[in-house]
């Protein structure tokens, strides 16, 4: 196994009295592609949101690229530069054009000159196959196009890790494929470290190095996709798989 780019040790988190993450231990190797699945409320989104401090963990250790996530804002900002995130509801900035959405981070956070930021933005728009939409506002695009813009926006920051929080759940069925295709391309061509919360089991089989199953805040089972889907060990995993694979 290559060196761990992200390591979680005994991580716990509560929402009020609700224990949402229980003793999570997880090592992610550089370049590894991980799919996280589980019933709703199992803590899978919270888990990846802890990695870029959108959620705060209350005990345990999270180390990203050798930097531990603490209350120190500088550490948090340093980690956010290395970690990109794609959201269920895209979270594009509606008052900016697609191109401006993409160049915002590079210009203000990475301090790139505008021309270079725009060149980079256009490269990634090519990559997600919508360069012709650069001048439009997000509200003028379809859901699938918006999510591809969101992926491009994250990539523009040159992250080492990409987090995907149910990237296809809010999309109309006919748009799911165009987004998954982009994600498969990203996995195959760039060797990006990816953590993907999704119920797209086809994607998991095709791309993932490891599938993690979570329930009630715990990691119940993890394995290679083939082993995970064909010979699940835990009863809860079996039940979950029987419910989503019909």
């Amino acid at each position, binding site marked *: 196994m290559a060196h761990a780019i992200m390591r979680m040790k005994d991580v716990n988190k509560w929402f009020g009295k609700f224990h949402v993450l229980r003793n999570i231990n997880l090592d992610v190797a550089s370049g590894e592609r991980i799919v996280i699945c589980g019933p709703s409320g199992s803590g899978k989104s919270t888990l990846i949101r802890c990695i870029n401090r959108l959620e705060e963990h209350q005990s345990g250790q999270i180390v990203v690229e050798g930097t531990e996530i603490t209350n120190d804002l500088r550490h948090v900002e340093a980690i956010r530069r290395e970690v990109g995130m794609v959201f269920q509801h895209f979270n594009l900035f509606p008052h900016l054009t697609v191109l401006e959405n993409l160049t915002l981070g590079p210009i*203000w956070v990475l301090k790139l000159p505008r021309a270079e930021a725009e060149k980079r933005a256009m490269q990634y728009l090519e990559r997600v196959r919508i360069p012709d939409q650069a001048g439009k506002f997000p509200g003028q695009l379809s859901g699938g196009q918006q999510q591809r813009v969101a992926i491009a926006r994250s990539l523009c920051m040159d992250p080492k890790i990409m987090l995907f929080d149910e990237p296809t759940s809010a999309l109309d069925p006919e748009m799911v494929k165009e987004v998954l295709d982009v994600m498969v391309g990203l996995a195959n061509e760039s060797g990006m470290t990816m953590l993907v919360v999704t119920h797209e089991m086809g994607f998991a089989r095709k791309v993932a190095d490891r599938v993690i199953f979570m329930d009630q805040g715990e990691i119940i089972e993890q394995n290679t996709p083939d082993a995970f889907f064909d010979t699940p060990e835990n009863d809860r995993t079996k039940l979950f798989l029987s419910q989503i694979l019909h």
Partner: protein
Amino acid sequence: MSSVNTTSTAENEGAPSKRLSVWAWLRTHLFSSPLNSLLTILSVWLLLAIVPALIEWSVIRSNFSASTAQECRSTGGACWAFIIEKHRLILFGLYPYDEQWRPLIATGILLGTIILSGFRRFWNFWLVVIWTVALIAVAILMWGGVFGMKFVENNLWGGLPLTLILSTFGIAFAFPIGVVLALGRRSNMPAIKAICVVYIELIRGVPLISLLFMSSVMLPLFLPEGMNIDKLLRAQIAIVMFAAAYIAETVRGGLQAIPKGQFEGADSLGLNYWQQMRLIVLPQALKIVIPPLVGIFIAMFKDTSLVVVIGIFDLTQSGKAALTDQTWRGFSAELYFFIALIYFVFCFSMSKYSQSLEKRLATGYQR
């Protein structure tokens, strides 16, 4: 009374355009129900009672050219000759008569800069430069004392330029302060939040008049012996403080309308707090609150007339001064009509501008 009848437009939606006959139009818009008919008749009666009389007074029987009050009164209509006779006193107050070209130019500069700021193509760094130059020019013109211009103390300033200065500076300073207060009120830091909440609630709990009195009567008590802040400046500060509190609450409403996802999206890119506010949150929040914000600006423009309570001669007050002339007595209707017209032109322009701004900033929203 088309405003009462809301269904008629919906009926026509999507249908091929057809011209209603006059009779059909009347039936659907003015006489669709007994209540609607009653309201229509009432409104027509009201209009008939007011409009002809108003036109007769202000136009038909009015007098623009009388040279004495006696002659003017004899026509029985509005005596606009009074306004013409006294326009310089009304517009410029007690400012020395021979120097009144200076406030006239200052007013022109202020208005020009304000109009310039309305165009989006000037929304850049140069606007700051233009404003700085304009305000310095206004100050030099009003005070004088250089370039051979006589020094004019600011207790002689008055009329329209004074109203414009008070409201322009008022808006220019109250707006950024209000935005900062709104951000402070939503801050995670308890001390900052507490200060902002206390400030906003205190100011909003007090009428502007009492703030003006306090600024002119109480403030000197707290200042060290011999230190004296100019009366006009004190009034200006009171207006800024007052408006900032209201702007803060309005802007806070806009901030609360921004979905959490916008903050998370900005967080995930690594933007820091001030970058998030400036680039992501405020542009969207302020756009939402343009209508109530312009409402505050309009109220502020009119509220500057309250400075009269501490003896400052704004437009309303310098108009009243024109009434005290013994030879031209009894034309207060004409005077207040004229002053109201000036206020209306300014407020209506602001209102219209805000509507066009809303339209221009729309970007096909979808969240």
